[in-house]
């Protein structure tokens, strides 16, 4: 490690290239913080997926100034994909070799500012909600091997990108900014999942983009999550995200770049349905990682362009591929925690967002048996935290937000053989549904479907299930194939 600057750095410091700010910029991006000692600002003009012009300003050490100058030369005047591919090692090479020890952050800083400017360009095109309801352009039949891969810095999405690249695709990676709970997203001095995902893409020689979906995610996922709890339901935010955010956003970027496909690191498969039914979804090879239960709401027209390469692999194989190819990826714990509630305390999160009012606990006959501190603390099937002594264990059998009541009963009272399901999304004809799954790690139960009013269905189960909570997903299968899915409604 050098401890002095290379002459190239001093040359860029004294004769910086592309200094300034563009008027009529298509995007502006800033990274860093004056209290950390450096700030970089990039403005870009993008036209027809070319980064026509770049201007930059930097407050900071000589390394930051020189790195900004070198980046403006490497990224400007070429294709947007090539600009998004410029890596820290490309910058280092342009600066004559490694920077002095402790100065490497300069490379991260200027790259981040450029990438935020490109991100701003997408937002300027599509507004704050960016991709709400985005259905995709009409697909050409070009069969081009091009794909946008949604990456998070974790092993699954990194291997997804790598497999697509090795299969001969032109790959562009994209990472979504979804909420401010991401590690380090407010600070320039701490690790950041976006920065890590970018590094991972660049180390594979792939272009990387970011999309800011915070507004959309807040409205369609987080507020929905909180509101659903307040209504006495048991929501699954991953389902909302797949229904409204992730696949729409990846498709949006693919269309902007003129790319054909989108891919994610989910464990599921896309297969051709029978008799020209088009694309449908199927369970993955690794049944222990099956994510079809949360993927049912992906709109069919978006699924048609989607690839899930990991559906053909077991998790151990994915880890081995990452190791064999020397992919350094973030340590991602195997957990089904909600991404915006990293401590797993859902109730605490909800309570911060809605006022919880105390109410009555009643038995199935309507007799008051106790008090509670708020309906948001309860979900159907719950046994703990009821706070009433009883000879046989008590379970929550119903949550009534309108009257503020919690209904409790015996385990047998939770038994049900009928589940009403609405908000449906079908890949195949509903009649082909042979079983329904109502929990993430649950087993499917054989069922028959009956259509009822309001475009909803009732699934009649051949065996009882316990503790079906409104708001949960119910996903219908025909063997390995996903027929469709929906949201459990109240039985009344």
């Amino acid at each position, binding site marked *: 490690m050098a401890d002095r600057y290379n002459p190239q750095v001093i040359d860029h*410091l004294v004769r910086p290239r592309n200094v300034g700010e563009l008027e009529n910029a298509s995007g502006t991006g800033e990274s860093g913080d004056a209290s950390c000692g450096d700030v970089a600002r990039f403005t870009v003009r993008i036209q027809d997926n070319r980064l026509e012009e770049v201007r930059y300003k930097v407050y900071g050490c*000589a390394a930051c100034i020189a790195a900004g100058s070198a980046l403006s030369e490497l990224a400007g005047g070429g294709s947007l994909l090539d600009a998004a591919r410029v890596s820290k090692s490309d910058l280092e090479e342009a600066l004559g070799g490694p920077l002095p020890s402790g100065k490497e952050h300069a490379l991260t800083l200027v790259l981040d500012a450029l990438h935020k400017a490109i991100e701003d360009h997408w937002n300027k095109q599509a507004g704050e909600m960016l991709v709400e309801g985005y259905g995709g352009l009409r697909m050409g039949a070009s069969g081009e091997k091009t794909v946008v891969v949604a990456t998070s810095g974790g092993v699954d999405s990194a291997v997804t990108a790598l497999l697509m690249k090795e299969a001969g695709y032109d790959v562009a990676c994209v990472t979504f900014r979804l909420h401010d709970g991401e590690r380090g997203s407010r600070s320039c001095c701490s690790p950041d999942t976006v920065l890590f995902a970018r590094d991972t893409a660049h180390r594979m020689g792939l272009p990387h983009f970011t999309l800011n979906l915070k507004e959309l995610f807040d409205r369609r996922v987080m507020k929905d999550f909180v509101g659903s709890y307040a209504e006495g339901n048991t929501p699954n935010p991953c389902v909302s995200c797949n229904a409204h955010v992730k696949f729409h956003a990846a498709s949006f970027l693919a269309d902007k770049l003129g790319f054909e496909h989108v891919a994610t690191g989910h464990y599921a498969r896309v297969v051709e349905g029978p008799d020209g039914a088009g694309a449908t979804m199927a369970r993955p090879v690794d049944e222990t990682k099956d994510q079809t239960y949360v993927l049912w709401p992906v709109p069919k027209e978006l699924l048609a362009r989607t690839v899930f390469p990991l559906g053909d692999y077991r998790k151990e194989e994915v880890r081995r591929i990452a190791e064999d190819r020397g992919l350094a990826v973030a340590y991602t714990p195997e957990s089904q925690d909600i991404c915006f509630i990293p401590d797993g305390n859902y109730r605490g999160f909800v309570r911060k967002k809605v006022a919880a009012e105390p109410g009555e606990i009643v038995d199935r006959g309507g007799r008051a048996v106790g008090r509670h501190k708020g309906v948001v603390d309860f979900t159907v099937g719950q046994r703990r935290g009821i706070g009433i002594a009883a000879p046989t264990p008590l379970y929550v059998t119903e949550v009534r937000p309108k009257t503020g009541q919690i209904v409790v009963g015996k385990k047998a009272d939770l038994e049900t053989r009928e589940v009403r399901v609405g908000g449906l999304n079908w890949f195949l004809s509903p009649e082909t549904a042979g079983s329904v799954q109502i929990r993430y790690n649950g087993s499917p139960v054989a069922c028959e479907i009956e259509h009822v009013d309001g475009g909803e269905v009732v699934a009649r189960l051949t065996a009882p299930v316990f503790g079906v909570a409104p708001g949960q997903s119910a996903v219908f299968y025909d063997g390995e194939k996903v027929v469709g899915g929906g949201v459990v409604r109240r039985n009344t």
Partner: protein
Amino acid sequence: MTDGSVYLDHAATTPLDRRVLEAMLPYLQGALAGGNPSSLHGPGAAAREAVEEARASVAGLIGASPQEIVFTSGGTEADNLAVLGLAAADPGKKHVAVSAVEHAAVRGAVEHLESRGYEVTRLGVDTDGRVSPEDLADALRPDTALVAVMWANNEVGTVQRVAELAGRCRERGVPFHADAVQAAGRLPVDVSRVPVSTLAISSHKLYGPQGVGALYVRGGVKLAPILFGGGQEGGFRSGTENVAGLVGFGAAARHAMEEMDDRIRHEEGLRETLASGALRLPGVRLNGHRNERLSNNVHLSVDGVEAESLVLFLDAMGYAVGSGSACASSTAGHKASPVLLAMGRGEDEAFNAVRISVGKDTTREEVEGFLGAFSTAVSRLRELSPLYIH
């Protein structure tokens, strides 16, 4: 200094005075070279004589007796010997008070004591960087092992009211250490009039060689050594003496004493030219006390320009100046100056400071040339800066 650039970083180190080099040479090669002052033979005796002559010169510079001078490897060792040695000499006392603007040598030694269970009071400073004697008096406790406040600050150049601070400590019987590394040779430092217990000085800040320094230890002050071995320097500092270096230190101290008034007059004139010229630019402020400051120090905050880039830009234009504190900027990467933070400046401002320090041989032409380069560098970097509004 050797590459033809104009050297304006005398607070970091000073060029070796030609006369000092000539005094040293006989002890590096030729008849007087190679003697160990501890040896009994002729060469040993010659070396001993040279070391004692140097000791007398260094003592003379600060108004001390020669037997009160302990030679060390430099200012850092002298500060460490004082802080650790005073604490170890009175092991029952577990409290230390220091200013919040100490040089890293004192700060680091105090942090070491802290890690060993000592309680530390860090005395705040006013916006000029000065410790209040009342605050110091309030901080003293029956178990205070020592107090350390530097004579003059290495970054912003502010001179402390050392006589008053040391006086408060003497009244209470608490040892007082002063880091006078920047002060010695640049302003009168006289231990016969200022009741310090110990005082650190360094040769390379007054045109002597690097790697040589001294700790003044007032007669009667209890101090424990931190280096053990052959018992040189009265047992306070074991290790064979750096004879040629000490000879250089002695010569440098003698010249500093003889020429002090002329040097101060010369440097203060240049300092005022520099300060008034630089302050004519918008968004430039002088840090430290306006008058009670080192004769050679101009410390500036420059809005919208980060210090390192300014220093390197000026370097490329042929002017060598310091960013914040030279020690911190070369090793610790990118850190805001703790001195400016202690003076109440924001973190953003603490990255924007440069130190210009003239020397006895700096010329008026050099200073005027610098002011032109400074103006160019500042405006070029401000064109680049997203934080500076024109």
